[in-house]
């Protein structure tokens, strides 16, 4: 999967694929590739919605300790 993908990008790309295929703007030869691409984009969104990536957790840890340090 392409790196640097975001929800916005995935959504836009998926929208573009739908438009292409609805407008019959693709060669039959490339259909299989497009299906694969769409499947990957959908899987990316569905997974990301349900699993917090490790690097997000790691990023948050300093803020977390700061947050917890000032309990009153």
């Amino acid at each position, binding site marked *: 999967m392409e790196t640097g993908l975001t929800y*916005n990008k995935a*959504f836009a790309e998926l929208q573009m*694929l739908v438009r292409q*295929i609805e407008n019959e703007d693709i060669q039959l030869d490339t259909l299989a590739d497009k299906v694969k691409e769409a499947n990957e984009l*959908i899987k990316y*969104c569905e997974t990301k*919605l349900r699993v*917090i990536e490790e690097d997000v957790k790691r990023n948050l840890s300093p*803020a977390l300790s700061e*947050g917890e340090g000032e309990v009153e």
Partner: protein
Amino acid sequence: MPVTQKLSEVVNEIEGTIRSRFLGRTFWIKAEIADVKKYPDKRWCFLKFIEKSGSMVTTDIKGVLWSNTYSNIENFESATQQTFSSGLEITCNVGVRFHKRYGLTLEVLEIDYAYAIGKLELERKQTIERLIKEKVIIQDADTGQFYSRNNSLELPVVIQRIALITAPDSDGQRDFQKVVRGNKYGYAFAVTEFLTRIQGDEAAGLIAEKLSVIAASAEKFDVVVIVRGGGSDTDFKSFNDADLVKAVAAFPVPVLTGIGHDRNTSITDLVARQNRTPTETATFIIDHNMNFDQEIEALNQRFFRAADNCLDRAKNDLENYRQRVKNLSPASILKKGFAIVMMDDKIITDPGKIGENATTKTILKDEIIYSTVTKKTTNGNGIDL
């Protein structure tokens, strides 16, 4: 050696004098209260009434509420959304009491909280007007809606990284966490808690401090959530604090509030995105993500429907061509009653090549006729078949 009296005799005389002077009389006063000590179990409250000139206290007298009027405090708190505590200016009806042991006291008989509400409302209105003048808030002339930099920020399409400002071990904290963690769609959230006091005089400053901590790593958060929940209706005042409102209004990450109940909207709510309770704030976030989820699902369905159509169309096209080719085949033509004429094992397309006495082979659907040509003429205008 002077003649002395017993202490009690003098104090009795003071008591008698005060009683006769103030018997049956009450006074409406407006004064600041200090050293407020509440005993909710006993339903007593001790305090001091003070008057200041500049910062110097010029008048100072004890005050008390006994259990028969203690409900005034509770009513005051629920009507004004603030804690009955030191520093407030209240309007109340008092009687003058003297006790041989405890001295002079003003007994509070009734608190006028309409005055307190009016004062708070006025303060709120003045703060809003000032913030509009300072361009922190813009009010839409037609709808009356309030806009700030913060509530004009677009929400990210999915909200997952949440900075939660709340009181430690509070209902608000528990309710919010419970709803986001227990969501039935299985959405994942990274909630970082920034715990602080969220009620009381210093709350506004403490919340603003937490905001500046979050601002230092603003890119790590999708939203900031401020919640305060459960039971306590009192002390709403910190959320009308001009400095806190400014901090929220200018905050670079969208702020969602869940700090009040039906009937109160603080100025902080106006400059952020308001939900009524911590639970509703959590639900708002889950619904927001669900919208995105559904849009993806809709695109998913559209895509595969279109892909199916693509394949179907290709199949239909293929079938059409097959049919057309079939219709043009010699077998199909013979079936319709046409014949093929051959001579010397070649299909004759040019009849000029056939002379009289030539031997030909006429191929029909089921039979082959061998002939010798006896006569040949032109077909004129053609035979109408």
